[in-house]
């Protein structure tokens, strides 16, 4: 793999950029792999990368039905934070956050992880109770975080409407300085390039149409383009399609797929330097390095795979943003789009074994998968490479939906994004 650097850039500039190498190969698949990963988004590519890099498993293929990073990886609002309520989630997301902090150099690809800090606003007394509960738990778990009052919030974000007269005044916030945003495409491409260089085959435009299953043990995958491809283990990491893959393997998951929308403004000069999220008023916003205000809208209530949702969600999101930031009223909204998110009953992912032996799922990240990308990949890779699930993944097993050991992040965790 050619190492990217400023010097390299100069070298290539002299040659009119005519000699850049491919970022990744475009191989035809082999007949048999040790592990096939279904889904070439951030989580799948990260899984492949860590399998190769940390566990020496390089006979790996990533099967992507479209193009790499074309699902939710390339559609989300790129917020990264780890201040989740319950220990199980907090540990997993914090593990991811620590990987984020060194990711650009690890991948030799600038994923533009920008630790500008994340505020979760509280507007009601109960919001503030929940925020204190969460921040206290984070603190004891070694995760950075503070409870701020409205004066402190105002100081961090001077353009935020902290007036006591507003409909839902800002009473305070939780503040995680290490949180921030990253460049979503770069994450997929960085993992892809690094995995490819370690020998992983990235197979694009190759939809998995079924599984080869014998004696309820998976033997490989079926594809329309290349027929059957064998594998010792198959790992599905296909947000927005998890339920469909499960159906192909003959079972159901506790997942519903919903549209989730986002929108951006036209680029404006830097004006918002933090990530601001609000549960009660329901909107979240950051400003990208390009200058766009990146805004997350609410999830649509109905099941949908259309990668688009209903217009009222956009109206509600912008009403919330204007309530929080009245000065954005005259800023033009450029584009809206949608992704398909797999939601679980407890707003926590499912990472682990399935009813089919050697068929694994890493899914159900709902609206918050992007921030977990490196952690999810690393933990899942460790689980696939070894004989049992990684300790951080264990609580997220499928069987919790039978036993009742749910990890309910709905109630007190702020917006689960």
């Amino acid at each position: 793999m050619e190492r990217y650097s400023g010097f390299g850039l100069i070298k290539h500039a002299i040659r009119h950029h005519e000699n850049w190498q491919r970022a990744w190969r475009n191989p035809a698949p082999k007949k048999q792999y040790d592990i096939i990963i279904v889904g070439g988004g951030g989580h799948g590519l990260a899984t492949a990368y860590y399998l190769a890099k940390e566990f020496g498993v390089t006979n790996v293929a990533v099967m992507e039905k479209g193009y790499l990073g074309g699902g939710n990886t390339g559609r989300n609002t790129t917020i990264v934070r780890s201040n989740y309520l319950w220990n199980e989630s907090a540990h997993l997301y914090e593990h991811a956050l620590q990987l984020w902090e060194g990711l650009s150099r690890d991948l030799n690809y600038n994923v533009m992880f920008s630790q500008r800090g994340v505020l979760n606003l509280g507007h009601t007394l109960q919001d503030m109770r929940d925020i204190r509960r969460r921040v206290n738990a984070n603190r004891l778990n070694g995760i950075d975080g503070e409870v701020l009052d409205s004066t402190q919030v105002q100081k961090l974000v001077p353009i935020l409407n902290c007036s006591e007269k507003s409909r839902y005044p800002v009473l305070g916030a939780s503040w995680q300085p290490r949180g921030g945003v990253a460049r979503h495409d770069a994450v997929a491409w960085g993992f892809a390039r690094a995995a490819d260089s370690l020998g992983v085959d990235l197979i694009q435009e190759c939809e998995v149409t079924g599984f080869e299953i014998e004696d309820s043990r998976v033997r490989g995958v079926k594809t329309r383009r290349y027929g059957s491809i064998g594998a010792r283990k198959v790992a599905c990491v296909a947000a927005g399609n998890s339920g469909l893959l499960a159906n192909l393997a003959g079972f159901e998951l506790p997942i519903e797929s919903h549209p989730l929308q986002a929108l951006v403004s036209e680029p404006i000069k830097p004006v918002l330097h933090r990530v601001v999220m609000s549960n009660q008023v329901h909107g979240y916003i950051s400003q990208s390095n390009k200058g766009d205000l990146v805004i997350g809208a609410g999830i649509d209530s109905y099941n949908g795979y259309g990668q688009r949702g209903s217009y009222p969600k956009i109206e509600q999101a912008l009403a919330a943003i204007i309530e929080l930031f009245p000065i954005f009223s005259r800023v033009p909204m450029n584009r809206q789009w949608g992704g398909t998110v797999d939601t679980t009953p407890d707003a926590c992912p499912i990472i682990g074994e399935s009813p089919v032996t050697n068929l694994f799922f890493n899914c159900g990240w709902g609206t918050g998968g992007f921030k977990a990308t490196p952690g999810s990949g690393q933990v899942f890779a460790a689980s696939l490479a070894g004989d049992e699930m990684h300790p951080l993944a264990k609580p997220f097993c499928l069987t919790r939906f039978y036993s009742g050991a749910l990890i309910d992040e709905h109630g007190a965790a702020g917006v689960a994004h």
Partner: protein
Amino acid sequence: MKQVNRIVGGRCVDYDAEIGFTFNGKSYQGLRGDTLASALLANGVDVLARSFKYGRPRGIIAAGVEEPNAILQVGATEATQVPNVRATQQILYAGLVCRSTSGSPSLRWSLTGLVGRLFGRLMPPGFYYKTFMFPGFMWRFYEYVMRRVAGLGKAPTVKDPDIYDHLNHHCDLLIIGAGPAGLTAARVAGKSGARVVILDEQAQLGGCLLHMNNRIDGLPPATWLAQTLEQLTGLDNVLMLPGTAAVGYHDHNFIVAHEIVAHKTSGHKMAGHKIVNHAGRDDSPRLPRERIHKIRAAQVILATGAQERPLVFSNNDLPGCIQASATSVYIHRYGVLPGRRLVLMTTNDHGYQAALDWHAAGVAGQESDEKRGRARRQVVAVVDARPQADSPLIQAIRSAGIRVISGSAVIEAIGKRRVRGVKIAAIDSLGGSVTGKVETISCDTLASSGGWSPVVHLSCHTGSKPIWHDEYGCFVPGETIQAQHCAGAITGVMTLGSVLAQGAESGRVAALAAGFSLSLSDDDIPQAEAIEEAPGIQLFHLPHIKSTSRAPKQFVDFQLDVSAADIELAAREGFESIEHVKRYTALGFGTDQGKLGNVAGVAITARVLGKSIAETGTTMFRPNYTPISFGSVVGRDCGELFDPVRYTAIQSWHEQQGAKFENVGQWKRPWYYPRPGESMQDSLNRECLAVRQQVGILDASTLGKIDIQGPDVREFLNRIYTNAWLKLPVGQCRYGLMCGEDGMVIDDGVTAALGDNHFLMHTTTGGAAQILEWLELWHQTEWQELRVYFNSVTDQWNTATLSGPKSRDLLQGLTDIDLSGEAFPFMHWRVGRVAGIPARVFRVSFTGELSYEINVQANYGLRLWQMLVSHGEQYEITPYGTETMHILRAEKGFVIVGQDTDGSVTPDDLGMGWALSKQKRFSFIGKRGMARGDCQSRGRKQLVGLLPVDPEYLLSEGSQLVCDPAQIANMVGHVTSSYYSATLGRCFALALVKDGHRRMGETIYSPGVKSVSRATICEPVFYDPEGERQNV
């Protein structure tokens, strides 16, 4: 400065109405009817911007929404700033102030221009992914610089003074685009009686009719247009919305359209131009700045036309390079000829129109130009990429004495801040390479036409992919399940006659589909003079003598400085999907969303990959078609109307008493009633002691109330609640606990048996609506056999709660109900009159004191309240708010669902196993759920009381708890409620603690930021554990 480029004959401007405006601090004149772009061009302003990456000078290239360069900051005052206004869409008004959004320190001497020239080579696509990684700590600095460079305009720094409107429409037929096809469709459908809405993004209806010359039905286009508009105006069932852009096409034919209202009326009264009356208050009616039209249409006709593609060649971004059709628009609509010496580069016949128009304008203005000693305006040459094209249009050009250079292409524009000349050369028949010698021609304007791109965007918003049409050389709308029709240039058909015929036919078909039949007569189909055309060729990227990577930059996407070389490089680096190309190079990510460049970008990608354009496909278009302000989307849902505020009937009294309010759901509830000089804690202490010692009064009207009637009401309650309801005698109440099917507590409240078949259920304030729907869900989908009816009576009843040892005495003085303990025991209810008002009184208690909840019809709520308060003076009655209520109930260990529970708590966890009926035949909702393994196992968090070892220490609500202060990560629970109790004279708390029920008396620790506090676990009842006080 005079309007050097203004000529006569502009159809849309008023030559008698000069209006002044300011650009970059300099004053200019324009005409009413101008766009900001036409006015700037009229004044000979070439450079409006510096480009994003390389800081190159940029001017106006188009005349409509596709304009990528002329993005300005508009606004005279801080509050009325509008960032990123496209000059081609901004209608000129008197006093308009605008400035460039790029170029520092000035457009002429731009620092980014310098950096771009020096370091532009170091900025290939995605360079930022490959650099700025070392050393790691420098990233913040790099990012700071990057952010400063990026971004166009700036947001205002103060609140928007303007208002925005929304208007809903329903129609049988919505026609988007009022050009020849749309207007014809409207005329046809209008006659059928269908409700028709026709809208167009342009302030004037007519589309290309406003600048074309072809006669229709033997009439000049302007005359035909005027006639048609008059006919449509005469139809009551046709609504015309000019200046209204359809920006989003959503599912089930829901279209969002955006209108800029303030433009349309002169002397409009926007807040930005406030008219203040003598009292200094602005109470005059205002116009909204913008309006969103939300249109639900049975049928939609897309008649959105097409946008011309400029060609890609070296330095094609120099000011003076312009879309061929845009020159015709500026000439005919605004009377602006944006240069003197034109070279036209075209791949098709349509481009010739620009040369003809330019030539005619030059001839017409010859005399006046000569008088003023100006150079004559002329067409220097037409360069046609086709080897041997011939048609009447081409002959017309030739016969005007204009040089036509066939089989050639402009390969490069020359100039620094404006085109000075072009290099042309013969090219091969496929346009792949230069075959002849390079000739330089001097000119100041280069118009180019590379064919047309149908405006397919709206058709894609609901998920339909556009299809490449090989014959027409463009993407056309793909299959859709929407009730959608297409007519005119959007279908790729460009000849006027066909466009008109399609318009008429689509009008008929759509009206028919909407249930209105009509037949087309010949008169319905306007006839246009047929003009023979030579076929165009598909050429997007003109060759250069150097390779793409070495030739001067050939821009595909102007706004984001994406060049042909960038696209080629992306493909070489393995970014092969068109989506990857888009994302890697940023092609089409600008505010114009790639309207000019997308197709060329796809074509270049296809060529590099050796694929066809059809195989390569295009990226998806998403709403908005053209950007709209956040404010317009929000409409009135801002400020005090952001979300409904719900008030009880007592609100005015609470306000008079100076209550502080708490938001509970959408309700405003009195939180506490501070007296002058009191701290919040002082007030709470006073209110608490008043209830414990005298009597307090609480507005409890917000509690959800559901009236349930029917023969099976008891059975229903028995199933939905965890406890038993079959035998509750009429006249009594019972506390009920409700769970979800997972066994977790979702709501609680007191429910009363009003009759054998009539119950009144109380829910939490926040849960009222959801619980009503929960009951309906079970009734309608599972237990239809149960005969019950549910009705919300939350708003019907106003509830004044009297609580405290004196409450009986107080109330007895006002009511005919016998309040004695024997006649009216605890957990009973009675009907009577209170203060002369019919009332239902519940003897229940959420404070642990003797309490009466007096319910009256809400219209009499305030009256009752006032009577209770005035009569209560002798008992020192004290109003108390939600906070006091919370303290008092916590002293009694009563939980609040949502505060002491979080969706993961079972009744057993709360120590409320007594509320679970084991005898019920029916397995009530939640019973099986709470029996699951992990809901019964050890280690569940259970509700306990906490007494801080230091009685003055108030544990913070939300504090985490540990058993061993040395192992703080081993959290065993958290504090859900915590208060200072004036009654107890100490602090206390409720908490959920793992296995808490078995840990009574143990010490538990709460590690704070600075220190660790200690508390003792106890039963969660701190006051009157026997319940004697409420039961007196």
